[in-house]
């Protein structure tokens, strides 16, 4: 099996902050990306998505070097914490843009959109505007778009942080179901140790722009020898 996402001796300087990432994240698994605020979690995601280009080193997705590839050329889908949907466009259009950015859709595509909405529990929401939805429903719509995009890698930047705890549980369940159906590679940035346990097969811990630990979840959650990690896990 080819490796999912590889950051090969990636170096990047943003303002006064230095980042060094060197890791291989397994394909078809969920990897939690954790660490204190400002440690570089989102930067790592941006490097994979293509919003940042490394000063040195390579970024590989599915065995292919995408270091200098434009974000649109990378086999990834994105889900942010918020603003995943264009608020002035209905759900059908928002999801349709995931299939074709000029919205040239075939009949099959249209059916796929409705099916994706069904799958995430938003049956018949095609004409609804994002403003009329709850936070959880908006994130479900973002999942639906990721579904129709059929990209091997899904990047999520604290997708559930704005939701209340009960909702977080059901969204995590949905994420795992979808992940098992399509067995994609998932990178999820999270602040919540419980979420790591609930969702992830592996986890990495970043501090000051460096990956301090990469381990399978059970081992990750049991480690107490790294002070910053211990603090993260206890808080």
């Amino acid at each position, binding site marked *: 099996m080819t490796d999912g996402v590889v950051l090969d001796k990636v170096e990047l300087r943003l303002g006064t902050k230095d980042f060094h990432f060197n890791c291989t994240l397994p394909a078809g698994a969920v990897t939690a990306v954790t660490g204190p605020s400002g440690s570089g979690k989102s930067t790592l995601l941006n490097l994979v998505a293509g919003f940042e280009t490394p000063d040195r080193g390579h970024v590989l997705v599915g065995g292919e070097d995408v270091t200098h590839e434009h974000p*649109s050329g990378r086999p990834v889908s994105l889900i942010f914490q918020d603003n995943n949907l264009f608020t002035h466009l209905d759900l059908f259009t928002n999801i349709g843009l*995931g299939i074709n950015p000029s919205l040239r859709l075939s009949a099959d595509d249209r059916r796929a959109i409705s099916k994706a909405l069904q799958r995430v529990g938003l049956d018949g929401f095609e004409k609804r505007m994002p403003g009329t939805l709850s936070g959880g429903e908006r994130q479900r719509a973002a999942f639906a778009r990721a579904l129709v995009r059929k990209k091997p890698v899904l990047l999520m930047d604290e997708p559930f942080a704005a939701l209340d705890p009960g909702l977080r549980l059901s969204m995590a369940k949905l994420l795992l179901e979808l992940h098992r159906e399509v067995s994609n590679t998932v990178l999820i940035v999270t602040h919540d140790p419980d979420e790591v346990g609930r969702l992830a097969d592996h986890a990495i811990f970043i501090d000051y722009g460096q990956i301090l630990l990469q381990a399978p979840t059970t081992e990750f959650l049991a480690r107490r020898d790294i002070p910053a990690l211990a603090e993260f896990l206890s808080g």
Partner: protein
Amino acid sequence: MLTRAERRRGIAWGLLSLIGIALFVGIAVAALLSWDVGDTRARLFTAYTWRILRFTLWQAVLSTLLSIAFAIPVTLALARRPRFPVRVWIIRLMAVPMGLPVLIGALGLIGIWGRQGVINSLLLKLGLDQPVSIYGLTGILLAHVFFNLPLAARLLLAALERLPAEYWQLASSLGMRPFSVFRFIEWPAVQRVIPGIAGLIFMLCATSFTLVLVLGGGPAATTLEVAIYQSLRFDFAPARAVALALLQIGVTALILIAMARFPIPDDAGMTAGRATRRFDGRTVPARLWDAFAISVATAFLVLPLASIVFAGLKADLWNLATSTAFLRATWTSFIIALTGGLLAVLTSLAIIAARGAVTDMKRPGKAAKGFSALLGGMSSLVLLIPPVVLGTGWFLTLRSIGDVTRFAPVLLVLINMLMALPFVMRVLAPAIETHRQQSGRLSASLGISGLAKLRRIDLPVLIRPLLTGLSFAMALSLGDLGAVALFGSNDLTTLPWLVYSRLSSYRTNDADGLALLLGIICLLLTMLGTAGQKEARHD
């Protein structure tokens, strides 16, 4: 949280200013309405007034369309290039026409687009013998675009910069091409604010006086306001002036009603430092196009401004600055601007205090709420009755009492005060509201009130917005030609009036020099005002 005395004082001051303004505007309108009633009605729609009304609206429609049509590509280019060289300065440059006395802008435009201007000399060299005419409809449109394109661009840019950063990430991740970005992101954001911006620009162009006076004025290119002025000053046909003034009120009323449906967007939050990152438009054609759009717009704005400086420097500045005519006009302008400015600030304070007092009541009655709404609508009232119309009303009223020129300075002060009121209110109201929220409860619990509160609590915080408001009002009054055009005389000459009379007696050189001096004075005033603002932000 106000003491009972404070509340009563606030209401009293508000009532006083409401009555004062209502009387000042009311008497003028009453004079217009009661003038030869039967006759006026017949004169309301003659072939002459009809033609002028049509031209007024037609040039306003064209000016609005052109301003917005040209502003859109410039805005899209600026929004797509957050790191364009000197971008911040280009955006600041776009604020200059808004603060520039209109007359000076007109002179700058003549310097570039006029018969002997840079553009026409260039065209002539290229072998084109049909020069661009700065006079007539072309000139008016050119000038309106010069003043309103930057306004539109700033407001549109603010709308684009308010979009969440994720939108641009999504767009590039989804692989949207420039047209898709325009169709699905940029255009929806832009078209939401266009009605409000169009309303504002249409209003400004439909009531534009100075530009039409300087660049139009012939029978084929006259707007209502200029026609009113010509009827009074040249033809002395008060009946016609009244008919035109009533038409003008009707037109502005209709525009205001239409505008009330579309809120004017604000440009707050712009250049707030939140760096938007764009991942689109990386191709060479896109870069070239953006650079082209931004450079052309910048040149369009910079050239006339540069022309003011260069033409002004060619004049004998020292002699001009020490001439009695200049010194007298400066003194007159200064006194009128200062009195008008102080009155505007005091009236704003009274209005804000009264509205604050009503908000402070536990259960304000209908009367109190209505009173507060009336005070709030005051600035619309000022827009409804443009200075020239107001001046006409008072001109007719005072003519029956005696020599109008005797009252002219007072009228100028009051008209300038009214004109500045909406702007001063916009500066002061939010500052005072913030201050009240921050210190209101604390002052009340400590029992600080009256003079001690004013000196220790209010003034230290509010002195900067107060000075900003005052400097805005003064700059506005210093640059105004509308009211003084009706009342100006040899005994009452303000700086803009002096520039205009030099221009109309073809002493262009003097006019250029004086315009530069006036421009420098206004610039200094605005800088004083905004310098305070900037520091206040650092606190």
